[in-house]
């Protein structure tokens, strides 16, 4: 009935789904799941603080080269929301840039909500969230750099679905002496982020941070399932390797069913 080689996959898939379902339900009932606070998030506080000190803006760049927002962009916006909240608290000057029409709308809402959430809706201005580029990512890089230089930013956060302009942006930020935080899943862009940004949120760290900030039941519930998946992978690998070393192949046969 089942295709060859998919039995183990189906079993795993079902268990995974169940764990996520239970996780989401528990979260909706108000259970608290602790999530490790990552240094990258503390860096946002530090960067906003620095911007306040210098009296120069903090810039958040949410990159989106595709016509649709993906999960990475959504997670990035969550981190920007946190930054906006911090900026409102310290009354630092704040700029956010979106490159997709839909992420622009969401970003605008998030930043506005962050400022009113801190009780300072009067500090929010319409030009705080700007739209640069549309789908033409080629024009985007130089335009953002020009804005960075014009505003003389003190710190920046590069996030979302970062494209090949990342290197240019990060270099421009570094030459302005800004504290930089990079947060993306794109493996091709991670080296630049790691080299030129002071703090990074790599891959899943971005998602975990977004879940940490939002405490959204769905995000946290699925984070629980992912955590389970990773632990299971570690156990399977360690047991499998030990078996292989001593000549057993039972586990692998089981997984290949």
């Amino acid at each position, binding site marked *: *009935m*089942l*295709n060859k080689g*998919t039995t183990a*996959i*189906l079993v795993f*898939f079902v268990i*995974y*789904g169940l764990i*996520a379902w239970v996780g989401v339900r528990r979260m909706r009932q108000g259970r608290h799941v602790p999530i490790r606070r990552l240094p990258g998030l503390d860096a946002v506080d530090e960067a906003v603080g620095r911007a306040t000190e210098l009296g120069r803006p903090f810039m958040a760049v949410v990159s989106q080269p595709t*016509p*649709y*927002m*993906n*999960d990475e962009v*959504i997670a990035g916006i969550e981190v920007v929301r946190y930054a906006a909240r911090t900026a409102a608290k310290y009354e630092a000057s704040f700029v956010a840039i979106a490159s997709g*029409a*839909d992420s622009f*709308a*969401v970003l605008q809402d998030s930043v506005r909500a962050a400022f009113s959430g801190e009780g300072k809706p009067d500090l929010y201005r319409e030009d705080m969230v700007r739209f640069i580029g*549309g*789908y*033409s990512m*080629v024009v985007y890089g130089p335009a953002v750099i020009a804005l960075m230089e014009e505003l003389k930013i003190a710190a920046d956060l590069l996030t979302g679905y970062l494209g*090949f302009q990342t*290197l*240019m942006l*990060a*270099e421009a930020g*570094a*030459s302005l002496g800004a504290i930089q935080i990079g947060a993306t*899943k794109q*493996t091709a862009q991670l*080296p*630049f982020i*790691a*080299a*030129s940004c002071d703090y990074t949120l790599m*891959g*899943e760290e971005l*998602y975990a941070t977004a879940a940490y900030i939002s405490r959204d039941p*769905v995000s946290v519930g*699925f984070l629980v*399932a*992912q955590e389970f*998946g*990773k632990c299971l*992978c570690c156990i399977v690998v360690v047991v499998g390797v030990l078996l292989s070393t001593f000549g057993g192949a039972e586990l692998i046969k089981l997984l290949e069913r």
Partner: protein
Amino acid sequence: MRKEVPLIVTFIAGAGIMAGFFLQAPLVKVSLSANLLNWAVIISAFALALGAGNLTRLHGLNLSRRGKNWALSGLLLLGLWGFFLLGLVKGPTYSSYTYIFNAVLVPGSATVMALNGFYIISACYRTFRMRSWQATLMVLTAVVVALGRVGIGQAMWPALGPISDWINRYPNASAMRGIVIGAALGTVSLGIRVILGIERGHLGAEGG
């Protein structure tokens, strides 16, 4: 209804593909999933023009209002629709079509990428500092691999080639493997959410 229909369509499409993956029934495996896939390819082809529509609106507005850089907007629209019509009428194998392609698009896209060649070398100089043990590890690996993959490094020290190959084949592959597995788990989570209609970000800013 407005909200439900897209979610039902998503579910049927997603569940159909998943059923074709797990179940052996030929009807599901071949007919259903092959048709779903072919339809998705067709709709994706329609989606290619979405970007064009948005750009046309954006730049058409700028052109008609004589806004900032309206001439550039006109140039963009001319390139977009002129080239599209040429390809539509004469076909992409027509000589003028390939001529423009080779004269504008090929050198243009390549040069935009090539700019990064300059930036990446200056990035080596301006940002590649051994600020911590992690950065040190990264810098050292980059140096070994950068030299080991080209003739000059291999001529300076013949072992450099094999060493950089080893770094790529084992330590690099092990970390990438971890990243691939982590990303796969993320894809599974997202997949479940999209197919079951819990995640609706793609259906529009209003939340679906």
